[in-house]
């Protein structure tokens, strides 16, 4: 495959026609600048995108976001909307970390008010929110409690007092997919989840204290309750070991089913797909939803402990942290779209892509109905993050947009080029505190290992998939004890 195989639709959108390969069912599209497209040839991400275009039931296009990079089966940054009536469901097209996603908490404080407390806040938050690699949470839930979380999601925790009504309202799917069924989740997965509710995990998962550095759209920022120099807290994590086990279990079960019972020809067996409407497919959907609910509960519990740390440093009477929004970027969702004049139910598989519903969409809270859904795009460690908003143009991508910077360099290569100490010193120089136990982990996540978030944001903004609202600047990066 070469650049000439792509048709330039706009400076931000490139297409490979269906005729490129006989098994493609739809064209493949990538949202990228010319330079980013050229860089995408460095790994197998575009070949993987072509593979996505071969999935039975796929509608319109196989889609890639500008932060695309190589994954398993589908590239990270891939989107496939599969018609449920005759299409498949693919655990491999969702990714191992089901409902990996973002939550943003807003404070009423400005940078000036928080700076004197920044260090204590970072220390206290790190203490309250463990990575889970060490002692973890000291509470071990029993299987009955895990089942309630799998079926109740963040709503369950809020009912128990671990959050506010707005936490649920300002969350994709109100923090709970109703088609979850705990009996579709193995006891292995449940066991892995017992002591991980409220843990951050490792790798690129993080917590950041940030300030609003720049506002691009005053009107929408006001609707979102954002103002210049405001302090916010960003949370990035997912369904931890439980979600990984769910994916492991279904890949293991589905690869033989796909090749044997259902004889579905796909170019990469890690798609591990079965018909959406088969009994097995429906069970996988219920299991995926259960893991998604677990992830929403996990982020809710983390928010609870961040708030606890906040109060212990700033006092009981400090103004509260309010959820702006919580949104997944690895997920399978049933959604309805008008395709060729017909309302069609599709299973949207978003793997490293964020849902971005437009103004007026019935599935977003009333308070955002006029502006559109808030989209949270994290940068790499120590670089800017963005708040964006969903648009009507986003319908072209089944209301999906980018999910972050996207890796550009292996962990290995990052370790060869930089050291943890050096990264921390560099960040310190620009006034960013880093709280992390592992120096190696810091080096692996160094900004130089990632694509430039500003470039990714520019593509989605210019192409209209979502629009810039505010730029967030990190003040403290917290990776968990």
């Amino acid at each position, binding site marked *: 495959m070469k650049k000439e195989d792509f048709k330039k639709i706009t400076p931000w959108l490139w297409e490979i026609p269906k005729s490129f390969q006989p098994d493609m069912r739809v064209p493949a599209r990538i949202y990228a600048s010319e330079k980013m497209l050229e860089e995408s040839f460095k790994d197998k991400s575009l070949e993987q995108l072509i593979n996505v275009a071969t999935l039975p039931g796929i509608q319109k296009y196989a889609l890639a976001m500008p932060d695309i990079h*190589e994954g398993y089966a589908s590239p990270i940054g891939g989107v496939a909307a599969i018609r449920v009536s005759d299409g498949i469901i693919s655990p491999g097209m969702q990714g191992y970390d089901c409902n990996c996603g973002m939550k943003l908490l807003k404070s009423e404080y400005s940078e000036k008010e928080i700076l004197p407390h920044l260090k204590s806040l970072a220390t206290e938050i790190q203490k309250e929110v463990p990575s889970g690699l060490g002692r973890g949470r000291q509470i071990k839930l029993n299987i009955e409690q895990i089942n309630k979380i799998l079926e109740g999601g963040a709503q369950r925790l809020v009912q128990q007092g671990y959050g506010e009504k707005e936490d649920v309202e300002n969350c994709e799917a109100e923090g709970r997919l109703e088609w979850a069924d705990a009996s579709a989740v193995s006891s*292995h997965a449940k*066991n892995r989840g017992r002591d991980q509710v409220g843990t951050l995990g490792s790798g690129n998962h993080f917590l950041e204290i940030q300030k609003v550095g720049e506002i691009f759209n005053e009107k929408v920022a006001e609707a979102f309750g954002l103002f210049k120099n405001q302090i916010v807290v960003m949370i990035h994590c997912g369904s931890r070991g439980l979600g990984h086990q769910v994916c*492991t279990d279904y*890949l*293991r079960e589905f690869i033989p089913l796909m090749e044997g019972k259902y004889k579905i020809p796909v170019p990469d*067996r*890690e798609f591990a797909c079965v018909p959406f409407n088969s009994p097995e497919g429906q069970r996988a959907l219920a299991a995926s939803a259960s893991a998604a609910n677990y992830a929403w509960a996990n982020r809710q519990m983390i928010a609870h402990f961040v708030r606890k740390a906040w109060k212990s440093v700033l006092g009981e009477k400090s103004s509260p942290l309010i959820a702006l929004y919580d949104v997944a970027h690895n997920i399978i969702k049933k959604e309805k779209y008008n395709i060729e004049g017909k309302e069609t139910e599709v299973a949207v598989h978003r793997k490293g892509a964020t849902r971005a519903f437009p103004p007026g969409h019935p599935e977003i809270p009333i308070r955002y109905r006029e502006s559109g859904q808030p989209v949270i795009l994290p940068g790499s460690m120590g670089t800017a993050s963005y708040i964006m908003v969903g648009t009507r143009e986003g319908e072209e991508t089944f209301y999906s947009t980018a999910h972050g910077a996207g*890796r550009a360099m292996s*962990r290995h290569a990052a370790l060869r080029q930089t050291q943890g100490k050096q990264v921390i010193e560099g960040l310190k120089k620009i006034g960013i505190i880093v709280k992390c136990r592992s120096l190696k982990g810091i080096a692996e996540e160094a900004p130089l290992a990632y694509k430039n978030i500003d470039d990714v944001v520019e593509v989605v903004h210019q192409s209209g998939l979502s629009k810039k609202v505010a730029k967030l600047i990190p003040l403290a990066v917290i990776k968990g004890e």
Partner: protein
Amino acid sequence: MKKYEILEHRADLKIRVFGKTKEELFLNAVLAIKDGLRPKIQSTKSKIRNIKTESSNLETLLVDFLSEVLYLIQVNKEVYNKVRFKKFSDTEIKAELSGQKIERFGEDIKAATYHNLDVHQEKNGKWQATILFDI
């Protein structure tokens, strides 16, 4: 003989494992996981776990076996450095793992994947496997 080597991969942990026999290949993959987790051992007291895995062929058996090992590692907070195979065929394993309780992991290995999986025997009779772990 080298037990395993770490290969270049953009986001995850890719390893090539070696073994004079299939059993040694599987054992060395378990050792690669242990090293990859960079564990801080809590006590040297030996912990024993039993494992049973069935799969459709040798390739998927390796991944399914390692998935089971990862499960035991995660839920028991232990790492394993010895494997005693009680039964070993291309589709079934019964084994006893022994290892130690850990205080913490330095790294998380969340899943063994089937991605670009390769298990084969070299001309000299030795075994080799390439496995990608999601971390």
